[in-house]
Structure formats: structure tokens, C-alpha cells
């Protein structure tokens, strides 16, 4: 069952669309960043020429701050993290709804155990959502490697980000920035996967595919607004998965981030397996 679902996911139009969208995001950010790099190099030359050495230090740009997940000043970073749930749900998030609506589900249930199918559906949706969410991140990193060096800069003056000691993983950022970048890639993928599974849960109550498709995005935005309104901005997924969303990071900790992920994952798993097992359609 799992192999069948994986095959459906990989050959589906959703995955192809995600690849194209991720490529557009990565290349758009690459284009903007290439202009920033040229400007930065020009400013560096001027600063060095003016008096031979720049007192505060003249530092090149580093790849860890040049790609879509490493900076927070381009439109593409904001767009990427804003539409993340849409990217995550595209490959496989609506297939449970379409399977049910088309009657295909009855055929499946006649051939395999319900629980096996539901578990396979959940796992593949989660994994496809994770891959879709993390695609633009890695594509952008690879693209920017063509123009920005991987420079190790062990102090704050060198960076744009303003990551300070009080923020989670700050020590790692200054000693092993590749580990920091990798951890946030995994966090982005984790929440991408979880958001994709939200669509599965909504499938039981939705009558329209668009509602299923947009439900993770609506939840994502609603959570952000609610969190900001009640002064709990640190728990907004939109804010803490962005590696450079600095202000919020003064309050959130890594265990809290993973606790949020665990709670959401358990909720979606229990709802999907529970509701899916007990009945085919709630409404």
C-alpha cells in the first residue's frame, strides 16, 4: 500500500507543481541576492580602499545568510514562509478527499485493511509535505552557492542576522552555522509535513476540495494572528520556523518548538486515524 501511495505521490501533478514553484522561489531569491552581492562587493572594495582597513571589520557575505532561509530582508523569504502550507499540501494533501469523493476509497477498503491504508496515507502525506516544504530551502542554498562563499565568520559583526546569545541555538550559529542551517531545514520540513496532514483531517468535514487545499494555510495564518493578538507570538509557527525571525526567538526555546510539533502531530494523527477508522465520512 505504501509503495502504491508513494508512486501516486511522485507521479502526481501536485509534486511537479511544487518543484516548479520551489524553483521559481529559489531563482527569484537568487536573482535579488545576486544584486545584493554585487552591491556588497562594491561597498567592501570602497571600505578597504578608503583607509586600508575598516575598523569595524570588512566581511564578505556568507552563504549561510544569502539563501532563502538565511536572510529575512527579501520578499522571497517572506513569501516562502507565508505560502509554506500551500506548498506542503500540494503533492498529496487532497488525495484522501478525492479518493473518497470518487468512490476509489471503497475499492481500496475492499482490498486492504482500513488502518493500513490510513497509516500509509498519513505517512506519505507527511513525508511529501515535508519534502515540498523543504525544497525551495535547499534549491536556494544550492543556487546561491554559485555566487556566495561558504565563509566561517565567528562573530556578530560579520552577520546581518542579529542572532544574539539569548536566542535558541545561537552558540551553534557562531561555531557551526551549517548545523544551524540544517536544523532549521529539518524544522521547516517537520512543520511542512504536519501542516500537510491537517488537510487529511479536514477531508472528513469538507465538501469542497478547495477548502481541503487551503485549510493548512488558513490554520497557519489564524494561529499567527491569534498568537500575536494574545501576546503569544513566540508560538506562531510562521514566526519560529523562519531561522531569521529574530524578535520572536528571544522567547521561544527548542524544546518548546518540538513540543508544538509533537502536539500537532499527535492531534492530526489521532483525528485522522480515529475518524478514518470509525467512519468513511462524518458529514
Amino acid at each position, binding site marked *: 500500500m505504501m509503495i502504491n501511495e508513494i508512486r501516486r505521490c511522485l507521479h502526481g501533478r501536485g509534486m511537479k507543481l511544487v518543484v516548479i514553484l520551489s524553483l521559481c522561489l529559489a531563482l527569484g531569491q537568487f536573482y535579488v541576492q545576486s544584486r545584493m552581492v554585487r552591491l556588497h562587493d562594491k561597498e567592501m572594495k570602497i571600505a578597504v580602499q578608503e583607509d586600508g582597513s*575598516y575598523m569595524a571589520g570588512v566581511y*564578505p557575505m556568507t552563504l549561510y545568510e544569502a539563501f532563502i532561509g538565511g536572510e529575512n530582508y527579501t520578499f522571497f523569504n517572506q513569501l516562502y514562509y507565508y505560502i509554506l502550507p500551500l506548498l506542503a499540501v500540494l503533492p498529496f494533501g487532497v488525495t484522501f478527499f478525492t479518493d473518497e469523493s470518487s468512490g476509489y476509497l471503497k475499492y481500496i477498503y475492499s482490498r486492504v485493511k482500513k488502518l493500513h491504508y490510513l497509516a500509509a496515507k498519513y505517512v506519505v502525506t507527511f513525508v511529501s509535505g515535508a519534502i515540498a516544504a523543504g525544497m525551495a530551502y535547499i534549491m536556494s542554498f544550492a543556487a546561491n552557492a554559485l555566487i556566495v562563499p561558504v565563509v566561517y565568520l565567528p562573530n556578530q*559583526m560579520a552577520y546581518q542576522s542579529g542572532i544574539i546569545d*539569548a536566542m535558541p541555538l545561537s552558540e551553534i550559529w557562531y561555531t557551526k552555522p551549517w548545523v544551524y542551517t540544517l536544523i532549521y531545514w529539518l524544522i521547516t520540513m517537520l512543520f511542512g509535513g504536519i501542516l500537510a496532514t491537517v488537510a487529511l483531517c479536514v477531508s472528513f468535514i469538507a465538501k469542497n476540495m478547495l477548502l481541503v487545499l487551503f485549510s493548512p494555510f488558513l490554520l497557519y495564518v489564524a494561529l499567527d494572528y491569534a498568537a500575536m493578538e494574545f501576546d503569544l507570538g513566540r508560538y506562531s509557527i510562521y514566526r519560529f520556523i523562519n531561522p531569521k525571525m529574530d524578535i520572536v526567538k528571544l522567547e521561544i526555546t527548542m524544546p518548546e518548538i518540538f513540543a508544538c510539533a509533537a502536539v500537532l502531530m499527535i492531534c492530526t494523527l489521532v483525528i485522522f486515524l480515529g475518524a478514518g477508522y470509525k467512519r468513511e465520512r462524518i458529514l
Partner: protein
Amino acid sequence: MDGFKKRYRWIVILAVLLLAGAYMARVIQVNQKYGKSSTEYLPDRAFKTWDGLEISMEEEKLYNIAAFLDKYPAAQRYYQYAGSIYEAYNDEEGIRDIENILCVEMKVRNLTEESRVIDPSNQYRLYSGAYGSGLTDYRVFEEVNQIGAALELRAGAEVSFLLCYDLNKKSFRKGSYEDLLERKFSILVHNFPDMQYITLEHLEYVAADEDAVSLYEQLVSADDSADPAVREDTQRATLLPLGGEYVTGGLCVSCDSIFVAYDNVHDYEGFDESMLPAILREETAAGQYSGAVDEEGNIMPMWSAVSQAFSDYKPSVVFVTLNLYNSSSRKKNIQKIYPYLYFYIGKNLNDVEMLPYTTCENVEITKTISSTSYEMEGYARGKITFAYYCVENDDYGVNLQSDPLWIDFNDTSVGKVNLKKGNPGKGIFMRIQ
């Protein structure tokens, strides 16, 4: 067909390998261009030489702030609540976040045969793991050392000075601020690409006695109640009429004058030529435009980031001068007086932009590397002028010279507002025309 498919597959594989090879070559080339950087951590007691300067650390102390202010009374005025930026924003807790100050006595000798200039306030930054900090206020450096912030050393000369670093607990990871001596502090003395740090291996803690703590408490106290001259603050949801007065924390603000310049900012008699560079039209790297005037002071069409075009409406610069009076006996920081301009139905639309133009009379302006402070002495009177870049939107029939204008003293959301109908929402507005 099978043969074609096989060949096609090989072509694809070859193309992918070539692309991968080209990609790796480019990545290697980009990284080689910047060369290798090095980082060296050096002990603090031995004499070191970089670029002709011999640097050594004489003394390293971590002071409790009360102990520091007790030892260096000249620095007290920079750590008191009255007149500080904390008072400007009613942040009584914020001023107490600096509980410790790290001080290092550094000796620098010029081994070359030419004069060398050093700037401790810019050059010698403190680092500890992910924590980094420049020197505290350069004025503290000058007061404590009784020398200027930038020093010129003649050939063979040496100088000793005390470097002071504020350690704000909000910048440190939870739990580590209580155990600062366990952290490894170092000072950067040579920059990229050959970075060299001196490690502070002999840091000692200096605690404060009771008298020092008592003095410190007086300095950071926000209690103004003993000052009978202080007037009551203007409450929120207030619409002040023409000639009205806004009061906040003892500072009284009223409108002195307004001038609308349509063609050139020099039409305004009080225009400060030194502020012209701050409001010059510039094109940014992202293809946007900032600034309001050209080099002659002619007012340029306003750029709209929304429509990505210059506005057709008539541009203008409105200069608003406010009278200031400090009704208390203590010095006041006036930085929270930062009003926005409102017109017609009380909406601060994209048609108004506050320019980085501020001129003052009888206000002490002090610029540091990271900030500028504006302070008024007790019972002093002064003026402050702001400039707003506006367009007269024909769709709404706006006329800046004759329409009612208001300024808004809020720092938070005002909710629904209709100033013409007398509804200030949750804000504090003052009519100025």
C-alpha cells in the same frame, strides 16, 4: 528504438555529469576568491604585536553596576533614569537590565615610526560565545579616561585606557547571566581575515557595598512624585484643539508654527542646510526611491512602492515646529515626542511620509555609534521641528495650506478615528491648523 533510448539515456547522464562538474568548479572558484581566514585566541598577559601596535591587558574586572558607578562617579549621569531613553518610553524596568559592567585596562604602544590612530569605541569589541558588544557609550569612555574617544599615538608613544562594556541581561541566554565568570570573554583586536582575540583569563568580580547600592537605587528610580512642578499627563482618547498643550512625563508640547513648501525646501526660512543630505533623493539597490529633494533642495515627485511609479499629485514638505517645556526639575529625554501628521478625515495614509529631519533649539543632542539622544534640562524651554513629505491628493481635494491638520502622539494603534467629527479613537491628537 531501444538503441535510441540507450543513447538518449547516456546523453542525459553525460549532460548531468557535465552540469554537476561545472557547478562544483564554480563553487570552488567562488570560495577560493575569498581566500582563507584564520582565527587565533591569545592569552592576555604576554605582550603582542599586530600591525606595529603592542597591546597588553593590565586589569580585568567584572563590576556590579552599583560598584562601577561608585568607583567612577563621572559615569553616573549616563546610567540614571531621569533624562534617559528609558524615561522617554516609561521603561522603568529596562534601565535595570544592565546589572554588570566588564572593564578592561588596556595598554597600547606604537612600535612604528609613524603616528597611528586608534578608536577603542569602534575597534575593540567584546565577545563571549554568541554574545558580542561594543563599548558602552563613548561619553562614558571619555569621562572615565579623561581622553577623547579617538586617540592619535605618536611614534614610540604608549597609552593606557579603561574599556567598559555594558552586559545587558536580556542579551544573554537564560541562566548564564548569573554565572558570568564561567563564560570565556575575549576582545577582538585584529579583524578579518586574520582575526585575533585576546582572551580575558584573569577576570575578577567586584561586588557593591550597601552605600553603592543605595546610590544606584536613587539613580535608577523613576519616582517623580516629589517634584511639584510636574504636570499631569494628557490621557488617551483626547483631541486637543488649536493652541492646546500635550503633556507627557512632565514635558509640555504645543504647536509653534507650520510651513508648507511646495517647490524648494529653502523657501522655509528655518531650514537647516546640514540636514539636506539626510533627505536627498536616492535610488536604492532594489530599484526603489527614498528621500524628497534633489541637491538644490527642489522637492521631487513622491515614489509609490505600491504602484511602483512616481505620484502625479503635487508634492510638498510640511515643516512643523513645536514648543517644548520641561516642567520638572529633572532632565528629560524628549525622544518620545515623535508625532505623525494627519489630514482630511484623519487617516495617516501613504501620502504622508515622515522625513529624517529634526532640528532643535535648546535641546542637548548627543550622537553615539548606535543612537542619538535628545535631552532637555529641568525647567528649560526649547523647540523641535519635524518635516513631513506629502502629496496633495486631488481625489480627496486635499489642500495642505488651508485644510485642518493634526499631529498624533500615539505609539500604539488608535483604532477607528474621525478627527473632523471630533473622534480621536484611542489616540492623542493635537490640532495644529
